[in-house]
């Protein structure tokens, strides 16, 4: 069946049921390209389990980060209608106050992440406060009627969820038939709460253990900014009339700033709200936590290379601030890595990896031998070992196991030392190596960090730290090393502790030394004569220069040098390590192409420089130029660049035919040159309508046979 038709735009293809495979396994697509390798299944499973693990982890992180916020919200909701719970006669006094308790939830600009937050929020509320939650989005509520409809639909559905299917007959009344009004919501609410009251005591217990007798109704506006003000205002005014009958609580999801409430709602409406502000964690902190837990840990064997990480962070910082998108990028990296790297089968926990190494096929061994990092390793070995490595599979496997182990140890140590270095650099003025640990991580991955200027300057700055800072840093480092899983750090801890005790000893000595310096200072204060002051200052300076370093300074140098030595041993860039290709995903171009594409640049390149895509010598040209043998659309495009806002089609056509006939050869006689060849005319029409489809031009009514240009300048 063809999909070309002049009467229809949609075509459904349904294969006959027996022919239809229920669902082709994803693993098949994994396999198709690498038919040769038999490890694809294992790889696919590894990939999937790794991703699931990471997904769980990220969800856990999100939950932990939101915990504080949700706790606050829950306690706010509890309080908001406490009077209502008591069912006292104080109602009458509440009648007068029509304020709706409102929580303004400032979530930040990363709109994409909000969905997840709201989902977990409603879950939390459902478990702790109330079953009656409605989540409203602006796109579903263009008018107050739609809003009420949506609201009722959600509220009454959740009612079914709570009370199972007991009273289905009650719900048979279709939602459409009920008049959507506040009164019907109220009657529904009273109905529901009464029912729970009248139910058997045992049942009541169970339900009231989680919720109160009359739980509040929570209405969440997910994206408050995009609601039309009219709808919001109407809803607030109407519901404030009924607040004494219906314990309503509003939650506003705000992406910008809390000021938006006041700019959206006039005072008369906003005065009906009793707003309390809640601030969620900033997305940057969220990202740091994610990086901390996913990348700077030895838990997951999969690692990101420097360029890839840089691309992901740049997309986050320059484009969307969305942690969700960062994780999506991470997911793509995992899929790409396992798909394109046959050896990624070894990218799993060390125990499994060792087993898998033993069962590697010959092809896979060859793959290992082909790795650039492994070749480098082989070249540094003795010649007989080289031969063994290149010929004997078993020996290779043995060595691979050893190398993998090395790599794991390296990771463990790397993380601890990186954190330790971060403790030092994050408190230096101007942050030469970056404020965040991710920046430091990138710097370390990129190349030998100790060879960079920034590192040099930060060491110099570290040599000027004062004692109290230094001591706290050392203590932090000790904590990091103690908590780390690396086994090599016993000595390091000892050494650091030794430094600490030395500092304490210094403190005792310092008391004695202080006297001398104080006297000098006092002397300085006595002098009021300018000449003498200058003289003493010069003397002081002289003496300071000549004086050898104090004990503290010596110790400080020692500490910094020690940290430096740690860095040099443990923070070797990953791509200097043998077999790093197995763990590290480093093809940033693929990632960038998929996530941060530039469609217009691609078009621009194709039109300006077709040789980029069509590898024909005739099209080859220097930058900015175009061959006159280029495809029609390129020529038409180039010609239209020379025009202003309007383009005369006749001129355009003539210019085009001039170019095209010149290419095809001068055999066309002079007589026909006046009249454009039909085929050329047709080609021109096609090219022009293609340009129209691409959005470069549009038909114009301003002048007959003219089209208007839609782009500026060079494009």
């Amino acid at each position, binding site marked *: 069946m063809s*999909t070309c*038709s002049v009467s229809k*735009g*949609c*075509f*459904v*293809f349904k*294969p006959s049921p027996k022919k*239809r495979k*229920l*669902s082709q396994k994803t693993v098949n*697509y*994994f396999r198709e*390209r690498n038919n040769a390798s038999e490890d694809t299944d294992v790889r696919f499973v590894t990939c999937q389990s790794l991703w699931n693990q990471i997904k769980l982890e990220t969800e856990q992180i999100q939950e932990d980060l939101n915990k504080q916020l949700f706790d606050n919200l829950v306690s706010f909701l509890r309080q908001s209608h406490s009077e209502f719970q008591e069912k006292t006669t104080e109602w009458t006094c509440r009648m007068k106050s029509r304020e709706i308790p409102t929580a303004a939830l400032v979530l930040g600009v990363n*709109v*994409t992440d909000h969905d997840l937050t709201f989902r977990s929020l409603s879950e939390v509320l459902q478990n702790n406060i109330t079953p009656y939650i409605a989540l409203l989005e602006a796109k579903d509520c263009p008018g107050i009627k739609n809003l009420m409809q949506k609201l009722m639909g959600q509220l009454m559905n959740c009612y079914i969820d709570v009370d199972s299917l007991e009273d289905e007959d009650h719900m048979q009344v279709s939602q459409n038939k009920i008049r959507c009004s506040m009164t019907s919501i109220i009657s529904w609410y009273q109905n529901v709460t009464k029912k729970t009251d009248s139910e058997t005591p045992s049942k009541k217990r169970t339900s009231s253990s989680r919720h109160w007798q009359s739980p509040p109704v929570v209405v969440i506006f997910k994206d408050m900014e995009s609601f039309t003000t009219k709808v919001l205002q109407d809803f607030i005014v109407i519901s404030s009339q009924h607040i004494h009958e219906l314990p309503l609580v509003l939650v506003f999801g705000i992406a910008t700033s809390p000021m938006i409430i006041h700019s959206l709602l006039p005072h008369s409406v906003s005065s009906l709200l009793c707003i309390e502000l809640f601030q969620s964690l900033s997305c940057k902190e969220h990202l740091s936590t994610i990086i901390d837990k996913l990348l700077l840990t030895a838990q997951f064997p999969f690692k990101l290379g420097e360029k890839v990480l840089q691309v992901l962070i*740049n997309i986050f910082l320059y484009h969307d601030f969305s942690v969700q998108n960062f994780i*999506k990028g991470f*997911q793509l990296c995992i*899929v790409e890595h396992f798909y394109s790297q046959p050896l990624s089968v070894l990218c799993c926990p060390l125990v499994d990896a060792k087993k898998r190494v033993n069962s590697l096929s010959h092809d896979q061994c060859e793959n290992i031998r082909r790795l650039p990092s492994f070749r480098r390793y082989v070249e540094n070995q003795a010649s007989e070992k080289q031969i063994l490595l290149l010929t004997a599979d078993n020996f290779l496997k043995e060595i691979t196991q050893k190398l993998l182990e090395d790599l794991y140890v390296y990771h463990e140590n790397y993380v601890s030392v990186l954190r330790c270095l971060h403790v030092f650099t994050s408190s230096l003025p101007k942050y030469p190596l970056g404020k965040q640990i991710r920046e430091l991580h990138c710097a370390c991955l990129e190349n030998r960090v100790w060879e960079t200027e920034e590192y040099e300057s930060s060491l110099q700055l570290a040599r000027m730290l004062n004692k109290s800072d230094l001591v706290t840093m050392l203590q932090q480092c000790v904590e990091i090393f103690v908590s780390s899983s690396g086994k090599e750090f016993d000595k390091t801890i000892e050494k650091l502790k030794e430094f600490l005790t030395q500092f304490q000893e210094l403190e005792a000595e310092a008391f004695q030394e202080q006297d001398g310096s104080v006297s000098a200072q006092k002397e300085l204060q006595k002098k009021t004569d300018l000449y003498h002051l200058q003289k003493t200052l010069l003397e002081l300076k002289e003496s300071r220069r000549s004086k050898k370093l104090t004990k503290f300074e010596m110790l400080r140098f020692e500490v910094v040098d020690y940290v430096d030595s740690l860095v040099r041993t443990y923070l070797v860039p990953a791509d200097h390590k043998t077999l790093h290709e197995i763990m590290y995903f480093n093809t*940033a*171009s693929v990632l*960038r192409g998929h*996530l941060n594409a530039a*469609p*217009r*640049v*691609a078009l*621009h390149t*194709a*039109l300006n420089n077709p040789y980029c*895509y*069509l590898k024909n010598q005739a099209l080859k040209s*220097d930058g*900015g*130029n175009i061959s006159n043998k280029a*495809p029609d659309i390129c020529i038409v495009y*180039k010609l239209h660049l020379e025009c202003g806002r309007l383009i*005369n*089609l*006749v001129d355009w056509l003539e*210019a*085009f035919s001039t170019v095209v006939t*010149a*290419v095809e050869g001068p055999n066309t006689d002079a007589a026909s040159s006046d009249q454009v060849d*039909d*085929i050329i005319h*047709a080609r021109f*029409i096609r090219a022009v309508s*293609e340009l*129209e*489809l691409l*959005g*470069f031009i549009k038909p114009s009514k*301003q*002048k007959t*046979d003219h089209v208007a240009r839609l782009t*500026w*300048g060079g*494009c």
Partner: protein
Amino acid sequence: MSQAGRRERAALEVKFVPDEEVLKHIAEDSGIKVRKDKTQLTVTLKTFVKKLEDISDDGAQEILEEKNYVAALGICAQGSMGNGSSVSGGEVYSFQTPKRSSKMVELASELAQTPGQIVAAGHSECPEKTAKTPQSSKRPGSNKAQQRSKKKEFVSTTPYRLRKRLAAPDPDLESESEYSASCSEGDEDDQKEGSAGLSGQKTSAKTKAASVSPPRNTLAKKVKEDKMSNLVEEYFEAHSSSKVLTSDRTLQKLQKRRLNQQTLHDLLKKAPLAYAAEIKELNQQHESLFSKWMLHLHWGFNIVLYGLGSKRDLLEKFRTSVLQDSIHLVVNGYFPSITVRSILNSITEEVLDHTGTFHSPLDHLEFIIKRFKEDSSLELYVLIHNLDSQMLRGERSQQILAQLSSLPNIYLIASIDHINAPLMWDQAKLSLYNWLWYETTTFSPYAEETSYENSLLVQQSGSLALSSLTHVLRSLTLNARGIFRLLARYQLEHKDNPSYPGLSFQDFYQQCREAFLVNSDLTLRAQLTEFRDHKLIRTKRGGDGVEYLFIPVDDSTLTDFLEKEDEDV
């Protein structure tokens, strides 16, 4: 003699100092530099040239910075596919610059003159030419005689300039200084016309002018002003004038037979596709990624294809080779009357076998989402050609499609072509779509996508109307045809009158009677009703309540129609 001239110049210069002061205040930025120039009384030519270089360096610097930004995003062009990313944003999104109307002809002849060779396009005009063009545009030479008519705007301004130029310099000025004056004047002229905004070239021309003319200070100032206000001026110039400097030629005058869809199609079939081998190779590269597409689809991503060339064939190939055994829906976005509703309908009716209607697309969508969530074994592949088409690019349609695509068991593969297509999506929609971008530049012609009548340009419009006209008229009586012809002729006679309201009924009746076409006004009315039912004519009431009749077809089609009719009769 020349010294005298120079002295004259110096005197002039002194006179203009206050002007400079004023300008200094206006242009703060360059003002400082100018003041510096004044302190150094002897400004050497060298420093001046250097300054110019500095300016152009600044421009280069900016481009460099842009490139750095691109680089910061992790540019790592590997392989042929990554080439696109090496273009900086400044090249792609630059300001609009006013263009000279003759530019296209020049470029075309340039391209044509050197067949088989690579020609510099526009950018590398030789300096001689730039020096010449202003002059020729001032006094339209023989080569531009044909375009003279369209340069009315220029013609009107030129005398003023000439007058000014004749009045300003002293008559005893030497020819050399006269030349320099005209040259700088020419530069100004050039500026006004905006020679494709090639600043580098302009500056080079200006340095030349500066080296000839003695009063460097004033020139330096002028150049700087030009430089600074260049962008702003060019922008406003491009947008302020409602007059359009293009020739008045129309396709009518070409004596060109209009091509209809069929002949166009046939002609294009005859024309061999250029670079077929390379295009095939390109396509094969893309086809090798099919299994990867499926993998990504199954990992929860949706795929969007972009790049020059029709992606229809590629998607068809994908469909026939991979999706044969699964349920899939193909949507031709370029189809002129496609709607989201029809897409949703085909899902509910044909995929879910549900009969029933829905109040709104939102209800419809909800139903679909519910069904897909209930039945996880249900899988649907949706292929949309041209997601950015006129009919689907609206906010609401995109929202619905995005929500549809966010379902875990609906897999969406779409293609986009329009340069501004990504603007359709905000962050929320993007996250729903969860796109993975694939560059698939195919260079194949957009045959199917542009085949619908309204997607073609003026050459085509009307051919459908014309054929419908002839078809309807053929079924009518001779008298009826006569009536219509009469109206058509009358309309054509008045085609130059922009305020022509149409033919009033009374006049029409009168004329028809005279031509023995009708005998009563009732028969005419009956006839007109028939025309109206076939949408051949339209009526509108004038201010005085009189009914005016006209044919809602453009003049050229009408002419064609009359010609054809005359042949028949």
